[in-house]
């Protein structure tokens, strides 16, 4: 048998011993990194102190004093910079969630569309991908924002639908449901519906395993989830009212408002990210060996069943890792909102708050920590999904 490594010889100096040398170098490298970091930080703090710049996180509890266009939680100008942080964080999460949701749907459809046998469909999808993938996202955000603003009328000449939905250059106004105490029954009905659906899925699987018959689980579940709460809602005497937006003074008041900044940003992010997801989907589907489809055809399965039951499950293994990256990119790209004034984390916390209190180091560190955390969480979730999708070898 061949030996790969020589036995250490007694008379060789320790630094000529490859194993010891490797360890020494690694310790040295680590020490260098530590010393470097220490000196940089030390230098920074010394200079900060010399210049009399405030440090620490006390600013988080001081009054912010500025208004924010949109907040998911109660916020007013007398709240603290800490609250501004939360408001910005929630707005970031909101636009990212909306963007991820629509980008996934559009991406999936376009990706499948690109492989369509229909010439028109596949070419249109290709044009879509090549157009939106090759224009910088910042330009697209600005473009959609300006298009949205330019094409919408002022509040007094709003487009109105059914006298309850209004669209103008201040946003999309929709009625806001005001829940009364009796609404709890509706929520209970919905939860019961969910439990029923879980049983239904189990039952359908057993039935499928035993008889091979397919039961329309998705449609039935949807029906249960919609019909049951609706019935309860009317039986218990409609325990919710709608608050409509009304034109008062300069603008509409009441109801829910979707501001144009959110619409434009979510739209641009979805459209842009969807192109990458579409390409990932296409790559995933093309990676499934042809034989799989042919075998499924030979069994007499229909095209959409083949896609759903044979192709996509195998393709997902290829699709998920690049899609994780796109979700992360979308979240990070949401910080480009600064260009159009959508009040997310970077705009209001790393922007306005930073300028009001001037503590760049603390604020930038906090902001970076947020993006790092979001990225890690998305990665963990998607890695879990990836693990689930792996081929299970039995």
């Amino acid at each position, binding site marked *: 048998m061949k030996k790969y490594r020589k036995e250490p010889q007694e008379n060789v100096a320790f630094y000529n011993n490859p194993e010891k040398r490797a360890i020494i170098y690694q310790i040295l490298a680590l020490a260098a990194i530590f010393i470097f970091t220490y*000196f940089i930080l030390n230098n920074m703090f010394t200079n900060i102190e010399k210049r*009399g710049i405030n440090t620490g996180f006390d600013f988080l509890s001081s009054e912010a004093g500025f208004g924010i266009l949109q907040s998911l939680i109660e916020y007013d100008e007398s709240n603290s910079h800490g609250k501004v942080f939360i408001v910005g964080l929630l707005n970031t999460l909101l636009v990212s969630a909306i963007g991820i949701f629509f980008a996934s749907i559009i991406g999936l459809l376009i990706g499948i569309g690109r492989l369509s046998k229909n010439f028109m469909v596949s070419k249109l999808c290709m044009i879509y991908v090549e157009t939106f993938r090759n224009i910088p996202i910042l330009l697209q955000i600005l473009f959609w924002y300006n298009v949205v*603003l330019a094409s919408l009328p002022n509040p007094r000449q709003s487009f109105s639908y059914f006298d309850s939905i209004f669209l103008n250059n201040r946003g999309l106004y929709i009625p806001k449901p005001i829940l009364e105490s009796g609404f709890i029954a509706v929520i209970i009905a919905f939860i019961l519906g969910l439990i029923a659906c879980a049983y239904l899925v189990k039952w359908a699987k057993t039935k499928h395993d035993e008889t091979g018959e397919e039961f329309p689980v998705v449609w039935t579940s949807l029906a249960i989830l919609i019909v049951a709460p609706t019935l309860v809602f009317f039986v218990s005497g409609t325990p919710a009212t709608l608050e409509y937006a009304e034109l008062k003074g300069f603008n509409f008041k009441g109801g829910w408002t979707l501001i144009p900044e959110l619409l434009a940003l979510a739209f641009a992010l979805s459209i842009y990210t969807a192109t990458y997801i579409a390409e990932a989907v296409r790559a995933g589907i093309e990676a499934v060996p042809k034989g799989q489809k042919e075998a499924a055809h030979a069994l007499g399965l229909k095209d959409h069943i083949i896609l759903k039951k044979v192709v996509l499950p195998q393709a997902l293994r290829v699709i998920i890792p690049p899609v994780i990256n796109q979700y992360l990119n979308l979240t990070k790209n949401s910080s480009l909102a*600064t260009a159009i004034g959508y009040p997310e984390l970077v705009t209001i916390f790393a922007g306005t708050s930073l300028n009001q209190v001037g503590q*760049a180091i603390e604020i930038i560190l906090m902001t970076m920590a947020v993006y790092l955390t979001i990225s890690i969480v998305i990665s963990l979730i998607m890695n879990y999904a990836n693990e689930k999708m792996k081929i299970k070898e039995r």
Partner: protein
Amino acid sequence: MKLFKTATLSLAALAMTATVSMADTLDDTKKKGYLSCGLNTGLAGFAAPDTDGVWKGIDVDFCKAVSAAVLGDASKVKYAHLNAKERFTALQSGEIDVLARNTTWTATRDTSLGLNFIGANYYDGQGFLVSKKLGVKSAKELDGAAFCIQAGTTTELNLTDYFKANKMEYTPVTYDTAAQVIEGFKAGRCDVVTSDASQLYALRTQLKDPSSAFVLPEIISKEPLGPVVRQGDDKWFNIVRWTHIAMLNAEELGVNSQNVDQMLNSSNPSIQRLLGVSGKIGEQMGLDAKWAYNIIKQVGNYGEVFERNVGKGSPLQIDRGLNKLWKDGGLQYGAPIR
């Protein structure tokens, strides 16, 4: 062994870089041969490119004046164009040596940011720009209106105070730059633009039809705008402060860019001290004796700078108002040079 050496050497190099101490801005500026000066990203009258792409304005002229005083040449300035959010970090981190960017002098900024304001070279106040179509005559009628504002400014905070004091509500639409603010106003995203009055007049000139909008009579805040330097370098602070004061004294003494050469022969002792004919003011600051002469010759006195950029000689046509010299009833007061 080579690797060993490299490792030790790089460690030593790291240790060296860590001992960089705080710099002497005057020495540094002389050494590098130019002044780094922070300006607005584009605000007519204060810092904006003209049709030939040359940056002009009160703030640009102030940068030039400091450069003339320190380096004897007004053209040796490297401009950094900063938005409201970037300006203080740029100064704190040493990217620029002087911030001349219509910045309001406030207690918080002066005390907690490691910065020093040298004084006010433009006394301003916050106002409201509205479209005539809106039919509003006073700021008190603006309850519920949407406001386009530039992020990270004192404007944002004053607006809150004003609306709270008057028990009114407003919707803030906050943008990064003044250009975005006026675009938002043009597109109808907001009803009102609020900012320093001088800025409103500048922004108004960018409308398709400037006469379609006007500035409401209410001025809701004091906005003393002035250049800023880093804290902890007193020598530099003095130079920048006295650059401003020298320009005020020049106007008061009737010395301007046209007559400064004749004035060198003036028998007025104040003019002699200002122009370095007598006294040692320049040397005491570590500058050339002709520091003020260079400022006036190459840039002009305060009045010239004002009229040329925002006053009667400019499209903005702003009245000098509070910015008149003290002896004409204004607030600009140059401490004596002696």
